[in-house]
C-alpha cells in the first residue's frame, strides 16, 4: 500500500484553508506549525488523546467557524469514545483528520498495539456518516476542497509514513502566547 508524507498533506491543507481553527497534537502539531504558524492554531496539550475533544468544544463554542482537528492514530486510540460523542453531537463545522502511521512517533516510534486498525470503519461504526480515507496525495489534493466544504462532522484518515521531526520543543509549542493569540484573533473576528 502506498503512503503519503504528512508534511505534504499539511501543505495541501494549508493551501486550502482561510479562517479555520486548526487543532493539532504531538507530531502533527510540530509539522503543522512548521508549515502554518498562524494565530488560529490551537495545540492540544498534555493529556494525549484530547485533540478531538478540544475540537468538539471549539466547534460548539464557535459555530460560525470551521474547526479542523489534526489528530494522531495513537492519540485517537486513547480517546476512541470521543468519536461516539462527536457523532451524537454532530457539529456541522468539525473536520477530524487522523494521521495514521501505526506508531507512537512522538514517544520513540514504538508500534501501536494493533498497527492494522481500520479507523475509518471505527468512526463509521461510532456513527459518523462522512468518513474518508486517503493514501495517495493526488487523491487527497483532488478531494480536499469538497471535504472542507462538506457538512460535518467529517472524518478522514491520512495514511502516512513516520515523519522526521528533529526537535520536539514542547515549551515553544505550548507557550501561553499562542493561546492568547488565538483568543485575540477570535475576538478580532479574523
Amino acid at each position: 500500500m502506498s503512503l503519503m508524507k504528512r508534511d505534504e498533506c499539511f501543505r495541501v491543507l494549508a493551501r486550502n484553508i482561510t479562517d479555520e481553527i486548526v487543532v493539532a497534537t504531538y507530531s502533527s502539531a510540530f509539522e503543522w506549525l512548521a508549515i502554518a504558524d498562524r494565530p488560529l492554531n490551537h495545540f492540544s496539550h498534555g493529556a494525549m488523546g484530547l485533540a478531538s475533544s478540544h475540537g468538539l468544544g471549539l466547534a460548539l463554542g464557535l459555530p460560525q467557524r470551521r474547526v479542523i482537528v489534526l489528530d494522531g492514530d495513537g492519540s485517537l486510540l486513547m480517546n476512541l469514545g470521543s468519536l461516539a460523542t462527536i457523532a451524537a453531537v454532530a457539529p456541522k463545522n468539525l473536520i477530524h483528520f487522523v494521521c495514521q502511521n501505526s506508531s507512537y512517533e512522538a514517544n520513540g516510534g514504538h508500534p501501536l498495539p494493533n498497527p492494522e486498525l481500520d479507523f475509518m470503519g471505527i468512526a463509521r461504526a461510532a456513527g459518523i456518516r462522512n468518513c474518508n480515507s486517503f493514501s495517495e496525495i493526488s487523491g487527497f489534493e483532488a478531494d480536499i476542497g469538497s471535504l472542507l466544504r462538506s457538512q460535518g462532522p467529517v472524518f478522514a484518515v491520512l495514511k502516512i509514513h513516520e515523519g522526521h521531526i528533529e526537535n520536539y520543543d514542547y515549551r515553544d509549542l505550548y507557550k501561553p502566547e499562542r493561546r492568547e493569540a488565538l483568543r485575540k484573533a477570535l475576538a478580532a473576528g479574523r
Partner: protein
Amino acid sequence: MRVDAPAKQAEQVLQGSSVVSAIKAAGVEYVLSVPDIVTSRGVLFPISEDPAFRLIRVCKEDECVGIASGLSYGHKRALILIQYTGMLYAMNAIRAVGVELKQPICMMVGLLGKEPDRAPRESGRYGVRIVEPLLDAMGIAHCLIESDADVGSIKPAIDECYAKSLPVAILIGRSPS
C-alpha cells in the same frame, strides 16, 4: 484551598432544584456528563429535561476537560457533572489543561459512598478520603455541598472558575432530592 462556604444549618437537606437553579444562575449553558448515581436523580435528570441547558453525554470524563476548554474560546460556560471516580480517572487532563494551561474547568463531583455524618477527609472509603487532599495538592479550589445551606457556594465557585480561568471542584456530599 477552599471556596468560602456559608455556615451550615442544622437541617441537612439538599434539594436538586436548588442545585440546578444555582447552576443556571451562574450562566452555565453546557453540561458535560458521565452519569453519577449521587447526582443522577436530583441534578442530571432535571438538567436533561431543561431547555436552558445543552447536555452533552460523553464516554469518559477526560473528554469533558477538552470540550470545556474549547467552549471557553466561544465564551460558553460549561459544568462537568461527574462522579469522583471519574475525576480521578481524568486527573491528568485536569492537571494539563486546567492547572498548567489555566483553562476554566468547572467540575461538580458526586462523592459516591461518603457517609452523611463524616467529612470527606474522614470517610471510611479510601477513594472519598483522598479527594480533597488531591485537589489541595494540585492547587484546585473546592467546596463541599451537603445541604441547601451550602448551595449559595455554587454560583461563586463557577464565577471564580471563569473569572480566574482555573479549575474548580464543587463536591456533592449527599444525593440531592
